[in-house]
């Protein structure tokens, strides 16, 4: 399509133009709203904030924005695949490739990860009695780096340069030999920048959990979400570093003529090893925090403590460890040889054991309880059978010789959506409904929440269950159509209907948020009859929490004092607390890194050097405005 504005004529495909127009309209509406209700002070405060709840809220807000964008991609994918030999809009060939690449990359890096990090940010300090994360400034930097990475990645589409190499970016397709345009660079740099932020946040969470637990909050009294966060953060530290290295090497291959992943000395299989040494732990990085959320919600609404707490902790740690030993099960068809294929089949099977322990412990937590079907509980209950179904196909995939059939077919697409949606996405929704009082001081509507839950759950099974059959009937993944004679029509059509049911569920969620904020009915500190420390602080949680500092007397500390009908004991004798001070520097740092990166993508090296100098200058400014300066060298000041 050609458009001419002010004498310039631009040609762009109609989907890109549609995106520009709708973005401009949305931007206009938002600007109008901001000006009319004078939200500038609010925006300014969020730009400068280093408070864990506010940063967590930002993570969730933008994670959800990108979730919607990637969800829209999913609907477009499903429309194109709805019927055989379809030509929906222009989503065939490279446009289809860009769709699944954006969908996958955004869902993993810019939707699931940030929403989980957001929940960790909000909840972990409240669960362990910390006043903030250990390094509030770094926390803001981490968030804004994620934001910058997402911005870069999203921008590619608006310039009609979206990457089309799959979320796995396999070499040599991703090298400059086969995709010389900037499209693949957007993938490399977008993921790299946000990954850096993720590493910072992981470090921050680790230190927070080690250093800033309230008096009496021993390791084996920590809520399971905190445990899951701790293990996850360590995994992020290891896995995302590998990803960073892989992307770095790929950047050199693409821009500076090295040949790590092609040519006589390089090997495309190296990329696959690096990517999956990151990629497999990544799927547990997505799942473990969700397990943690369910492990806190299920006891609350069963009215009894988690069954087998120590086994739960042990299995989290074991899953975290084992997840680093199985990466090559994504590479069973690359010819690693019989021995390695067998080895990775066995290691993969072993992960089923700790996972199974967790499932049964959740089940036996329900036994003998008094189950209240609130919306967070519904999401948690929906998770159990759904996730087990994904686990079942997981074990089937680990059978190497059988995987020669499953691999890269729609069966695999069915499998990983089963596990990721059941754990991560249901977990995130459960967490948002459960913690909305702490985030916003409001409780989301239960009736609309139930609509959201049922539509989403039914749509999810309707989309992904038939997809197993589609795969077993021989449909590969990443193909944009099939023939009427292939026997794939019925199951594909069912999947498309299911996807729209899920979409309808999400619309109910939007409506719910809108309605809840319009009615604006404040909620109590402990609306769910909770068991842990986060329900002792006001809703929404203020910037100065835990003053005075509570003393933790066991697991489920709030429950203990509720049963004994007394108040929580407090103390003034505790470790020094993190010092938070608002600062605009994190945003500026992230923006200059984004600008630097943008110039790198287009190989404007001089401009990027200038932004690099700018970034360095910001580091110097930072070192002169360190809020902890007065405390250095004075030991444990409080």
């Amino acid at each position, binding site marked *: 399509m050609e458009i001419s504005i002010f004498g310039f004529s631009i040609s762009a495909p109609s989907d890109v133009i549609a995106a520009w127009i709708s973005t401009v309209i949305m931007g206009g509406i938002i600007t109008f709203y901001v000006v009319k209700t004078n939200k500038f002070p609010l925006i300014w405060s969020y730009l400068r904030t280093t408070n864990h709840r506010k940063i967590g809220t930002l993570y969730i807000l933008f994670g959800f924005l990108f979730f919607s964008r990637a969800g829209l991609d999913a609907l477009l994918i499903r429309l194109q695949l709805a019927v055989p030999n379809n030509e929906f809009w222009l989503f065939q060939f490279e446009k289809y490739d860009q769709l699944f690449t954006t969908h996958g990359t955004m869902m993993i890096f810019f939707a699931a990860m940030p929403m989980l990090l957001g929940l960790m940010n909000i909840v972990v300090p409240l669960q362990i009695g910390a006043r903030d994360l250990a390094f509030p400034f770094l926390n803001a930097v981490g968030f804004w780096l994620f934001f910058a990475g997402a911005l870069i990645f999203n921008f590619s589409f608006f310039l009609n340069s979206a990457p089309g190499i799959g979320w796995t970016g396999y070499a040599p397709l991703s090298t400059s030999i086969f995709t010389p345009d900037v499209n693949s660079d957007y993938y490399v740099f977008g993921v790299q920048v946000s990954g850096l932020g993720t590493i910072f946040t992981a470090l921050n969470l680790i230190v927070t959990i080690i250093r800033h637990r309230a008096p009496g909050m021993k390791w084996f009294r920590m809520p399971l979400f905190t445990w899951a966060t701790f293990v996850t953060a360590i995994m992020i530290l290891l896995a995302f570093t590998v990803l960073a290295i892989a992307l770095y090497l790929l950047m050199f291959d693409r821009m500076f003529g090295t040949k790590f992943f092609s040519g006589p000395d390089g090997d495309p299989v190296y990329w696959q090893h690096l990517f999956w040494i990151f990629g497999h732990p990544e799927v547990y990085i997505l799942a473990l925090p969700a397990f943690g959320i369910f492990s806190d919600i299920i006891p609350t609404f069963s009215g009894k403590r988690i069954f087998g707490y120590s086994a739960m902790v042990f299995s989290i740690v074991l899953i975290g460890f084992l997840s680093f030993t199985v990466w090559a099960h994504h590479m069973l068809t690359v010819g690693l040889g019989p021995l390695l294929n067998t080895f990775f089949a066995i290691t993969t099977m072993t992960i089923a054991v700790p996972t199974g322990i967790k499932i049964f412990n959740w089940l036996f937590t329900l036994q003998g309880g008094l189950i209240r079907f609130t919306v967070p509980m519904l999401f948690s209950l929906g998770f159990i059978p759904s996730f087990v179904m994904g686990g079942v196909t997981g074990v089937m995939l680990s059978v190497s010789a059988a995987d*020669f059939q499953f691999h890269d077919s729609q069966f695999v697409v069915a499998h990983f959506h089963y596990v990721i949606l059941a754990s991560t996405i249901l977990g995130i929704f459960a967490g948002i409904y459960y913690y909305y009082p702490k985030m916003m001081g409001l409780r989301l509507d239960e009736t609309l929440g139930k609509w959201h839950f049922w539509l989403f759950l039914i749509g999810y099974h309707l989309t992904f269950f038939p997809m197993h059959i589609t795969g077993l009937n021989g449909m590969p993944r990443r193909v944009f159509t099939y023939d009427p004679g292939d026997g794939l029509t019925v199951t594909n059509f069912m999947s498309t209907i299911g996807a729209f049911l899920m979409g309808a569920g999400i619309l109910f969620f939007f409506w719910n948020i809108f309605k809840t904020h319009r009615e604006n009915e404040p909620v109590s500190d402990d609306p769910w009859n909770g068991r842990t420390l986060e329900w002792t602080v006001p809703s929404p949680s203020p910037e100065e929490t835990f003053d005075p500092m509570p003393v933790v007397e066991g697991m489920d500390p709030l429950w203990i004092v509720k049963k004994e009908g007394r108040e929580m004991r407090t103390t003034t004798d505790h470790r020094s607390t993190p010092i938070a001070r608002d600062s605009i520097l994190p945003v500026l740092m992230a923006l200059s890194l984004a600008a630097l990166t943008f110039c790198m993508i287009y190989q404007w090296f001089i401009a990027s050097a200038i932004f690099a100098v700018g970034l360095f200058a910001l580091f110097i400014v930072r070192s002169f405005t360190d809020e902890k300066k007065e405390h250095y060298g004075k030991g444990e000041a409080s």
Partner: protein
Amino acid sequence: MKKLGLLILSGFTLMLSGCSGINVLDPKSSTGKDQAYLIWLSLGIMALVLIVVFILFAYFVYKYRYSEARKDYEPVDVEGNRKLELTYTIIPVILLIILAVPTVRITMEQSPDTSASQKPEDGTTKIEVTGRQFEWEFKHENGASVKDELVLPEDEDIEFNLHSEDLIHSFWIPELAGKVDVFPNKELNYVIRDVERGEYEGKCAEFCGVQHTNMTFSVKVIGKEDYKAYINDLK
């Protein structure tokens, strides 16, 4: 909740048992049959787990749900139960071992690797497969080569020597057997045993660029004598 569980479960069995027409579960080579056997075995073993979980889940959720009659009930905290927890640790281990034994056997036998057999044995036909954006080329033992059409002799073991001229593709004939990747920098060998007469469709299973979807080929398995005549005609 309970109804949903049952619905899913019955759907699961119905769809799979009713559909012996599903390509991968009804393959036309003994290599593919071994793979289908593993699929059924793993599905069967895992279905046991699935049923136990679904039943426990439905039962607990139904029995312990909140109701007017139970609203004053105070649940008792249970820390855990060593014996029970050991049970559901050990039983899965046993189930996995049962699954692992045939997995190891068949995987060791079938895995593609880089060492080609030098001289074709009796009953083995060699095919050299070349993948490139976006077509397949098949070279028969007598040197004749054809594009996007693969003709094979029935009841023979077929040894494929695969390599690519550009990037990674993946060679897959779902109705015969599993896939194997095709690399630019190495040659892989994959054997499909006892192929049966029929017409099938082959596909590229590794995303390789714009025309990946259309990188398909047709497969015909014909009588041995017909095959000989066919390759001689090609010359």
